[in-house]
């Protein structure tokens, strides 16, 4: 750390800052979230509401990754990108195994039926 580490503005991570990309990400996120809200409020609006919602979400995530977080495989960002990719298996485990459990849980416990 002895080099010029003490000037934060010289860090390559900090130099990635880009106002235009941030604004673009923000605008895109706002538009996509409004669209998602619209679909959720009026599911009849498009044929497969769930698929539509997922597509909008995926698009939003992609835009955030590219413009806001600026993840790529450059030497500056490689650790962050790899960490991000490694989070996917966890996501699959956490959500997947939960879905698997809940899939039969309602029928087995009959709790949700009682709770209305």
């Amino acid at each position, binding site marked *: *750390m*002895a080099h010029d*580490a*003490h*000037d*934060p503005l010289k860090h390559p991570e900090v130099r990635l800052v880009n106002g235009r990309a941030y604004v673009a990400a923000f605008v895109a996120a706002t538009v996509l979230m409004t669209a998602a809200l619209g679909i959720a409020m009026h599911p009849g609006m498009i044929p497969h509401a769930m698929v539509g919602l997922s597509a909008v979400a995926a698009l939003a995530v992609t835009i955030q990754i590219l413009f806001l977080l600026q993840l790529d495989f450059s030497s500056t960002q490689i*650790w962050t990108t790899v960490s991000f990719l490694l*989070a996917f298996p*966890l996501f699959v*485990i*956490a959500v997947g*195994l*939960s879905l*698997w*459990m*809940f899939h*039969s*849980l309602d029928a*087995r*416990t009959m*709790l*949700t039926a009682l*709770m*209305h």
Partner: protein
Amino acid sequence: MVNVQGPWSPILGRLSLGAIPDNPIIAGAFIFSVVLGIVVLGYLTYADRWGYLWREWLTTVDHKKIGVMYIIIGLVMLFRGFVDALMMRTQQVLADGPHSPGFLGAAHGYLVPYHFDQVYSAHGTIMILFAATPILVGLMNVVVPLQIGARDMAFPYLNALGLWLTAVGAALIMLSLFLGDFSHAGWVGLTPLTELAYSPGVGTDYWMWAIQISSVGTTLGAANLIATIVKMRAPGMTWGRLPIFTWTALSTNIIALTSFPVLGVALGLLGLDRYFGTHFFTAGFGGNLMLYSDLFWMWGHPEVYFVILPAFGMMSEIIPTFSEKPLFGYVTMVAASFAIAGVSWSVWLHHFFTMGASPRVNTFFSVATMVVGIPTGVKVFNWAFTVYRGRSRFETPMLWAVGALFMLLVGGLTGMMLAMPPVNYSVHNSVFVVAHFHTMLMVVVYGILGAVTYWFPKVFGFRLNESLGKRFFWFFTAGTIMVFIPMYTSGFMGMTRRLDYLANPALLPFEVAEELGIGLYLVSIYYFVRQLYVSLRDRNANRVSADAWGSARTLEWVAPSPVPFYNFAVTPRVHARDELVWRREQGLEGAVPAHFEDIPMPRNTAVPLVIGALALGLGFGLVWRMWWLTDLSFVAIILTVIARSFVRDTDYVVKAAEVERIEKRLRQGAAEAARNGASASGIDVLRPRESSP
């Protein structure tokens, strides 16, 4: 925003004089705290220590001091948690059978259910999140940068912020003792008990926000430690040479970084239920209370590995040092740590086998849980082979490390029993489970106490008293045996957990034994305090050189003891896995740098402390629903963070000549320092360091 029961005013929110509990025990605790507070404040004023406290501790960004403060917070909370334990044991020994007497308005024992429930909830929350976690984070803070040859953490300012956010959580819990009440829903926050309909008071809010705020601190700390290990290693410190404790710190912080957000989400959804009237976990209106258990344990199980992996790391440092042999199976040790971390994400359901998931689901999680035993077994054998044919010396740290090994054996095997759904169905929710996880957490406590003794001289420059330390160990161990063996037994006999009254008088002998055990713990605490006092008093007689134990192996022992604030005068070049051993063999031990260089260091800052104070305001406002305070604190936090980002002058330079002067004085060595009574520089508790920024 939901309406809450009882009075509310715009200024004070739900707070009123009625929030002050009237109970003789709490009044006693209050008087104790006030007297202690007056003594401390009086001493600070009398000895003119305020400036010192401010400059050297409150505004510091030095990883060692931050670590020490984490550990102090943890030890204070450990004591508070211990008092809770003492109270629970005493209640259960008094309230056995229909003829047991009642005191202080209780039908049996001396605690009414309302209080007993708060005591066990506070005990669990405190011990896991505000004692074990901060002490471990503190130790990683102190040791990791030293072990990898760094000057500080990657983000010193963020590090201080993590500390103060943890302190806010602890402060909120302590406040709940004197203003309002605490949660009665267990440390896990049983749903739907935590919902507003069943817990209309502020107790659950205290619990929820204390955890929420401090876990932000822990998450930031995890990111910081990972970045430090990845980016700040000295030249030559390749992955294959990384000391094992640092490896476990890496694996454990990966767990923290990925699991704490799940807790944040679970508590956040609960917060939405309690503040905005949503129905995520309510019993009705489409709420799903089982989802809470799922989310909680998705964090909860990784969290138990978060606390045990660093303890494994500590054992892996202590055992080779006192066996005077390299660690057996370095590579398998690293692999086992990551295997444990990896598997720890797919076992959480074993905490609710009885909830009613299908046999297939239970079987999957049962097998996954048992798989954890494989890497754990690898570790146990590695430690055993390290001791085998070594020159073992049973100094205090080694006693703790070997004690931890025995705890791991018992805790691990009972864990295996619990991992089988058929067994689990019969003992789930019994004190057998409580005994299991306490034995496991004892691994952590033993590891911590060993590590504190082991690294203490590195930070403070003198060793802790051996004979008092040994007494502490033996009384503590006797206490552990006396408390937990009867607890396993009564669990098998069907005693469920969290009971304020035991209907079955046959359990009385076990309760008496446990009460005796907690008495032994009390004696051990006396020896611990006395050990600290005597060691501090006689510190000049116990000064140590760089290698405090004479047989230490890793890089941190190359730096002088106590470590100066810049750690290494010149960034070390690493040649071997056990760097100090390598240097000893090459005759380089005690070699001094030929010339010194300027060292850039981060400057002290009060900003983290300010953000901490504002976060306390935020938490307090949320608990009592004082919206003006919440809004004000929240906006102020954001403005402070923004304002801080404009501060450019965050570093200063220690001149080469100054470094040389400090190093020369440190090298005069322990013996000489003792002779002329001067205490060396570094972070000596009693003397301010001489070159304040």
